[in-house]
C-alpha cells in the first residue's frame, strides 16, 4: 500500500481527492489529508454568499463523512510544519510525524497585506476564510450598534476586492473601494469597460476611489481612517484588505524545493516539482512562470497529478491555459475571454458601449474578420457562453462580426442554436465537461432532466457559470428525442396543475380521495394534498375548514406556524385603516394572552406566540371586536397596502385608501396558486410601493394606472403596466380577469411575477387576453370571480361556531394541558422562543 499525503484542504486539494478516489487503481493507495483550517474544504469562489445566509455547511465541497466513506483520512486544524525529503516524512505543528510515498502540495495562497503603517490596527481584516468573515460580521454588528452610517473600505478594486465590497453592502455598512491603479479590475478589464463598471457600481451605492496610494491607516488602536496624501484622507470604521494573493510556499522553501523569484513552487507540465515524489497543484503551483488564481486550471492540475501518479503519463497540462471567466459582481455581469486586451497588430476590436444602460461589449477578431480572438463583456454577459465556445472551437462567425454583440432587434441572435456546437466543445470548464458528454448522458438514458444531468456529469457544479447553457442543451436534447418535458406535480399524479384544475372543475370532485382514486395513485403527499385543497377552494369557494387534513401546515390551523411550533395571528385590517378602538382592542388581546406584537410589512399587526389551545380563545375575542381572519396563513390575498391618498395628502390625486379597502374586501379569502398582495398609491410618488405587488394601482390624471406581476422577495420585480387611465369599475373588471386567468393557469406555488414572465407572448398576449378578450373567456373569468367574491365567509368565525371543527385546536387529544416543552426568553420588553442550537 502506497501512501499519499495531501498538504492543504482547499478547493483544489479536495478536487485531487475526489478525482483520485474515482479511479479504480486508487485502491492501492492510502490518502492522508491535512488542512490547517478547522473545517473541511469549502467553496471559496462563492464565499460572499456566506454573508447572505451564514451557512458554512452550504459552502462545503463535501461533508467530513465523505472523506471517511472514501477511505481518506482528513485531519483538520493541524498545519504541516516541516518536510524531510530524504526520509520522505512530514511533521505537523503538533509535532506528529507521518511518512509518504507521494506528497501533494496544495497549500494555496494567502492574502497579501501591503506593509502600510497602521495595518495591524483593530478593524482591519483580510478576506479569505470563513473565520475572516466571522470576524468581519462580528465587528460590523458592533459598529452598526454603536453608530449609524458606519463606513467600511476595501483596499483593492480587483475581482476579490469587489466581492468584498458586496460583503460590506450586505453587512449594512457604507461601502468604499480604494484602488491604487487608475481603473477597476485592472487584470481583466480595459479602461473603457472599467469606467462603465465604475458608473454601474456607483449607481448602486458604492463609493469608488481610484489612483489612491494608501500611506497609513489612522486611528488610536482602532481604525478611524485612511490617509492617501497630504489633506487627502477617508474616514472609515473598518477596512478589508484585498490587495492580491501570495502563494503559501514557506514549507517548500524550507525544504529546498525550487520556487519562483516572486514565490510559487516551480512545476513542469506533469505538475511535478523539482523533487520527483512531490507534486504541486492550484494557486501554489508556478507553471509557465505564472500563478493561476482560477478554479478551472486548478482542477485541471489536480486531474494531471492524479493521472501522473497512477501511471497515465501522457496526461499533461496544456501549454496555453484558458483564463476566460464570467462572474456576477454585486449583481453586475462581468466576463472576459480569450485575449481581452489585444494589440492592434494582431487584429481589430469591435466595441459597443452604452453608458446609459451600463453596457460594454468588446470583441477582438482577426484581421480577416473570420476568427474570434477574445473579448470583454460588462453589464450583460448573457452571450458569454456562446462567444466563449465560438472562441474555443474556432467556429465560424458572421460576415459582419459586429452582429455578435449588437443589441438584438428582430429576436434572432446572430449565433445559431446551442445544438450547433461541436461535440467536443467544453461547456463546463471547471469540471471539463463537453457538450457531447451532456447530450450523451441524456441519449443513453442515464439522465432525463437537468438535475440528473448535473449529478451524473458534474457540469455546473463548479462556478456555475455554464448552468444556463447546460439547461439549454438538456432541453434541446430532450426535445430532439421527442421527450415531452412534463411538469407533473408529484409521484402521485401524472398531471400538471392546469390539467387537475380542469378535471376537478368538469367532474365536480369535492374530496381529495375522489381525485386521487380516479386520476392518481398511492396515498398522496405534502405536495399534491395542499395543491388539490387549493384547487377545490378556487373552484368551489370552500374554506380551509372543509377537509383540513389535506391543508398545508398553516391552513390546517388557520394560523402561521412559527419556529417553536406556536402560531402567529393576523386579523384583517383592510387597506391598513384602523380605528383607535380597534387598535386598543388588539393591544388588550395581545396583553391578555402575553403575545409578542409586531407591525408587519403589509400594514397590519401580527401577534406571535399563541399556542394551539389559545388560538380559538384569541379569535373569539378578536371576532367580538369586529375583526375577521386576515388569511396571513393562506396562499391567498394578503393585504392591499395603501398610502393615505387625497383623503389627507396634499399631493393625492385620488382616494387610494377607499379603493384599497374595496379591493381588499373584494378578493379576501380567495385561494390562489400562491399568495397575492396588492397596493394602491394616490399619486406617482408611489408611497404604497404598489409596483412591488402582484397588482398595483397608481392614481394619475384621468384615472388609475394598473400594474401587474410585481414581486418583492428573493427575486424583486416591478409590476408591468396593463392599462392606463382607467376608472374604478374598469380596474375591477381587468383585475377580476387577470387574477382568475392566473389562478387557472399558473404552476403550483408560482407567484404572478414568475407566471407572467413565462407566459408565451408576454405582456402583449396578456393584454390581448385580459383587455381584448382574444380567447373569448372573459365572461367566464368574471363570473367565476363573482362567485368567489359572493361566497366569502370568514373561516375563523365558521370554525369557532362549530364544535366538531374546534376539536383540532388542542395540543393533546387526551388532555386539556398545554405543551410543557415550550420555552420563551425575554426580548426587548417582550418575549421570543428560546433560540435553536
Amino acid at each position, binding site marked *: 500500500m502506497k501512501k499519499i499525503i495531501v498538504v492543504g484542504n482547499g478547493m483544489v486539494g479536495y478536487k485531487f481527492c475526489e478525482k483520485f478516489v474515482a479511479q479504480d487503481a486508487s485502491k492501492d493507495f492510502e490518502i492522508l489529508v491535512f488542512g490547517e483550517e478547522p473545517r473541511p474544504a469549502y467553496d471559496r469562489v462563492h464565499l460572499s454568499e456566506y454573508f447572505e445566509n451564514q451557512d458554512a455547511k452550504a459552502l462545503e465541497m463535501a461533508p467530513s463523512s465523505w472523506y471517511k466513506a472514501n477511505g481518506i483520512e482528513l485531519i483538520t486544524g493541524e498545519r504541516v510544519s516541516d518536510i524531510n525529503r530524504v526520509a520522505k516524512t512530514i511533521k505537523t505543528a503538533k509535532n506528529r510525524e507521518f511518512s509518504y510515498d507521494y506528497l501533494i502540495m496544495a497549500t494555496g495562497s494567502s492574502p497579501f497585506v501591503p506593509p502600510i503603517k497602521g495595518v495591524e490596527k483593530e478593524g482591519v481584516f483580510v478576506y479569505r476564510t470563513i473565520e475572516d468573515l466571522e470576524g468581519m460580521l462580528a465587528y460590523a454588528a458592533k459598529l452598526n450598534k454603536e453608530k449609524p452610517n458606519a463606513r467600511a473600505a476595501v483596499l483593492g478594486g480587483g475581482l476579490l476586492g469587489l466581492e468584498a465590497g458586496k460583503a460590506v453592502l450586505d453587512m449594512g455598512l457604507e461601502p468604499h473601494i480604494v484602488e491604487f491603479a487608475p481603473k477597476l479590475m485592472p487584470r481583466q478589464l480595459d479602461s473603457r469597460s472599467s469606467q462603465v463598471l465604475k458608473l454601474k457600481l456607483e449607481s448602486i451605492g458604492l463609493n469608488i476611489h481610484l489612483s489612491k496610494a494608501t500611506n497609513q491607516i489612522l486611528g488610536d488602536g482602532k481604525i478611524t481612517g485612511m490617509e492617501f496624501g497630504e489633506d487627502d484622507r477617508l474616514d472609515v470604521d473598518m477596512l478589508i484588505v484585498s490587495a492580491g494573493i501570495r502563494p503559501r510556499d514557506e514549507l517548500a522553501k524550507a525544504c529546498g524545493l525550487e520556487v519562483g523569484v516572486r514565490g510559487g513552487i516551480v512545476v513542469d507540465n506533469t505538475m511535478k516539482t523539482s523533487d520527483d515524489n512531490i507534486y504541486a497543484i492550484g494557486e501554489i503551483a508556478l507553471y509557465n512562470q505564472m500563478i493561476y488564481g482560477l478554479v478551472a486550471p486548478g482542477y485541471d492540475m489536480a486531474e494531471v497529478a492524479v493521472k501522473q501518479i497512477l501511471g497515465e503519463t501522457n496526461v499533461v497540462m496544456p501549454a496555453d491555459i484558458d483564463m476566460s471567466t464570467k462572474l456576477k459582481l454585486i449583481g453586475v455581469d462581468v466576463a472576459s475571454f480569450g485575449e481581452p486586451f489585444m494589440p492592434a497588430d494582431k487584429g481589430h476590436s469591435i466595441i459597443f458601449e452604452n453608458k446609459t444602460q451600463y453596457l460594454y461589449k468588446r470583441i477582438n477578431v482577426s484581421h480577416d474578420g473570420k476568427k474570434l480572438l477574445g473579448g470583454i463583456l460588462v453589464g450583460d454577459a448573457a452571450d458569454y457562453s456562446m462567444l466563449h465556445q465560438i472562441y474555443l472551437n474556432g467556429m465560424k462567425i458572421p460576415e459582419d462580426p459586429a452582429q455578435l454583440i449588437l443589441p438584438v432587434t428582430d429576436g434572432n441572435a446572430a449565433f445559431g442554436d446551442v445544438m450547433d456546437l461541436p461535440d467536443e466543445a467544453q461547456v463546463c470548464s471547471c469540471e471539463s465537461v463537453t457538450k457531447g458528454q451532456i447530450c450523451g448522458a441524456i441519449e443513453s438514458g442515464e439522465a432525463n432532466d437537468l438535475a440528473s444531468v448535473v449529478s451524473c456529469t458534474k457540469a455546473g457544479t463548479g462556478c456555475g457559470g455554464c448552468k444556463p447553457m447546460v439547461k439549454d442543451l438538456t432541453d434541446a436534447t430532450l426535445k430532439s428525442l421527442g421527450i415531452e418535458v412534463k411538469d407533473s406535480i408529484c409521484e402521485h399524479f401524472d398531471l400538471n396543475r392546469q390539467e387537475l384544475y380542469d378535471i376537478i372543475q368538469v367532474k365536480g370532485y369535492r374530496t381529495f380521495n375522489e381525485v386521487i382514486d380516479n386520476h392518481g395513485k398511492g396515498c398522496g*403527499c405534502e405536495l399534491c394534498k395542499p395543491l388539490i385543497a387549493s384547487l377545490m377552494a378556487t373552484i368551489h369557494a370552500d374554506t380551509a375548514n372543509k377537509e383540513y387534513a389535506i391543508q398545508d401546515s398553516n391552513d390546517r390551523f388557520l394560523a402561521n*406556524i412559527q419556529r417553536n411550533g406556536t402560531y402567529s395571528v393576523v386579523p384583517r385590517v383592510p387597506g391598513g385603516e384602523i380605528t383607535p378602538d380597534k387598535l386598543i382592542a388588539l393591544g388588550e388581546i395581545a396583553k391578555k394572552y402575553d403575545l409578542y406584537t409586531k407591525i408587519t410589512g403589509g400594514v397590519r399587526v401580527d401577534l406571535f406566540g399563541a399556542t*394551539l389551545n389559545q388560538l380559538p380563545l384569541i379569535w373569539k375575542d378578536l371576532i367580538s371586536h369586529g375583526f375577521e381572519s386576515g388569511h396571513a396563513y393562506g396562499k391567498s390575498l394578503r393585504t392591499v397596502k395603501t398610502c393615505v391618498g387625497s383623503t389627507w395628502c396634499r399631493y393625492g390625486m385620488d382616494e387610494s385608501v377607499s379603493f384599497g379597502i374595496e379591493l381588499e374586501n373584494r378578493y379576501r379569502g380567495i385561494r390562489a396558486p400562491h399568495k397575492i398582495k396588492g397596493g394602491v398609491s394616490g399619486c406617482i410618488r408611489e408611497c404604497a410601493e404598489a409596483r412591488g405587488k402582484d397588482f398595483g394601482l397608481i392614481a394619475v390624471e384621468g384615472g388609475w394606472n394598473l400594474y401587474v406581476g410585481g414581486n418583492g422577495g428573493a427575486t424583486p420585480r416591478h409590476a408591468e403596466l396593463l392599462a392606463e387611465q382607467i376608472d374604478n369599475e374598469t380596474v375591477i373588471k381587468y383585475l377580476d380577469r387577470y387574477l382568475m386567468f392566473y389562478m387557472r393557469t399558473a404552476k403550483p406555488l408560482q407567484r404572478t411575477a414568475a407566471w407572467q414572465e413565462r407566459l408565451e407572448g408576454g405582456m402583449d398576449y396578456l393584454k390581448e387576453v385580459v383587455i381584448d378578450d382574444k380567447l373569448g373567456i372573459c365572461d367566464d373569468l368574471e363570473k367565476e370571480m363573482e362567485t368567489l367574491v359572493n361566497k366569502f365567509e370568514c373561516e375563523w368565525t365558521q370554525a369557532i361556531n362549530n364544535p366538531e371543527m374546534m376539536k383540532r385546536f388542542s395540543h393533546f387529544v387526551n388532555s386539556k394541558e398545554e405543551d410543557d416543552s415550550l420555552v420563551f426568553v425575554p426580548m426587548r420588553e417582550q418575549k421570543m422562543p428560546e433560540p435553536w442550537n
Partner: protein
Amino acid sequence: MEEVLEKYNATKIENVKVWFKAASVNDFPVDGGACVKYKDKQIAVFNFAKLGKWYACQNVCPHKMEMVLSRGMIGDDKGVPKVACPLHKKTFSLENGENLNGNIDAIATYPVKIEEENVYIGFSD
C-alpha cells in the same frame, strides 16, 4: 436537548409491556394525526384511513427538536407511509422512522392497536 430524544425508543410489538388507552377512534382526524400525552412523553398518532392503518411515533421532530410531528401531513413516498414535519417538510417513514429526504436521525415509532373503537399505544416502559 439530546435528553429529550432519550425518552423516545423505537418499540416493537413483541417488547410491549403496557398498552396505553389513548382516546376514542373518533377523536382523531381521518387521514391525519393528533398528539397523545403518556407520562412525560408526547406521541403523535396517525389515523391512516386510506390504508386502513394506524401509526404512532415521537411528536418531537429530531431536526429542530420541536413538538410538532402530530400536526404534520401524512402521505406516501413510493408506497412507504410517511409524515412530513410542518416546520421544514422533513419526511419520516411511519413504518421504521427513517428520514426519507435527508440524513436526520430516525424517529422512534410505536405499535398501535384498536379495540372497541379505542386507540391503544404500546410502550415497553
